[in-house]
């Protein structure tokens, strides 16, 4: 197989995933403008942060005039799962050039990680082949994400009033949440995270969100520890955005 063939195989694998990325990107663009961000800020968010769920959370918080610490803290907690992906990919790329690794890190997504690790497990020997397959899965997602957020930001400004577009943001999170609940531990994490965050809506600086998320993770981890042995935990491919 040539580099080109491996790259194309990655692109092919990622194509069905686009179906979920396109509306998500449109919502992210439209929500940014809706929350009062400029087009340039909306684009910068997509290019610099490039992580959908955290972008939407940041946009919601910007719209509520949250403080810097809360916005950044929330984004980093949401994105902490990327450490898990980085660790799963790392053993395949210990021989890889650092510049390639730097690029791979920038375009890392849930989808590219899941598709690549699954493909490597089916057998793919050389680092070069693995690199091009990964780039094939990751690069199109980056391009589509940027186009969709710009389109969403432009179109979002002229959405008719009867369309409750602001509600599309929690709906997107909901669409990611449902498949992320794989085990009782996940259900516990969701239950605790959701209720604590709701009970804490009155807490200043939107800290209820952060406290809820952290307690949810703690509760889920506790339950996962108790059920360990009887179940092997979650398949990382199926963890949501």
């Amino acid at each position, binding site marked *: 197989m040539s580099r080109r063939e491996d790259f194309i195989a990655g692109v092919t694998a990622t194509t069905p995933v686009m179906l979920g990325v396109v509306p998500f990107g449109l919502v992210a663009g439209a929500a940014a403008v809706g929350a009062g961000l400029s087009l340039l800020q909306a684009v910068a968010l997509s290019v610099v942060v490039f992580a959908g769920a955290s972008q939407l959370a940041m946009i919601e918080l910007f719209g509520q005039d949250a403080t810097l610490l809360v*916005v950044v803290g929330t984004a980093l907690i949401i994105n*902490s799962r990327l450490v898990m992906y980085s*660790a799963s*990919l790392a053993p395949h790329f210990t021989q890889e050039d650092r510049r390639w690794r730097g690029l791979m890190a920038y375009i890392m997504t849930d989808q590219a990680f899941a598709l690549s690790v699954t493909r490597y497990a089916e057998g793919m020997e050389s680092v070069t082949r693995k690199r091009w397959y990964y780039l094939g899965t990751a690069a199109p997602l980056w391009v589509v994400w940027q186009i969709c957020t710009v389109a969403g930001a432009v179109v979002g400004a002229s959405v008719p009033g009867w369309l409750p577009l602001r509600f599309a943001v929690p709906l997107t*999170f909901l*669409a990611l949440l449902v498949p992320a609940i794989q085990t009782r531990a996940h259900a516990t994490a969701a239950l605790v*995270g959701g209720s604590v965050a*709701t009970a804490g809506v009155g807490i200043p600086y939107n800290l209820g969100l952060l406290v809820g998320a952290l307690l949810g993770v703690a509760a889920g981890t506790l339950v996962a520890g108790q059920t360990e042995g009887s179940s092997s935990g979650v398949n990382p491919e199926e963890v949501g955005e």
Partner: protein
Amino acid sequence: MTSPDAVVWLAVIVAGLGTYALRASFLFLFERFGDVPHGVETGLEMVPAAVLSALVVPAVVAPEGAIAVIGNGRIPAALAAAAVAWFTESILATIVAGLLAMIVIGAV
């Protein structure tokens, strides 16, 4: 009500750098540290469920900043959307179902 421009720009830059560091972490440090400790891995696996729920539930149950059940159309709309998410696992179908439900409830 929107955050000042300076806060937005600073947040974009700091969250961007931090997110890059999270992505790069093990790709660069694996040789030195090896695998993620098991306990940490379990914790990370819980992050999506906990965080997404902490984002969704208050946005549905307390959209104006206080818990509201009566007359809150977001609750039935979100339940309908959750059912669609469960059966289709499609982001597009979930958004469309939730928005449609919201429009219908608003019209009733």
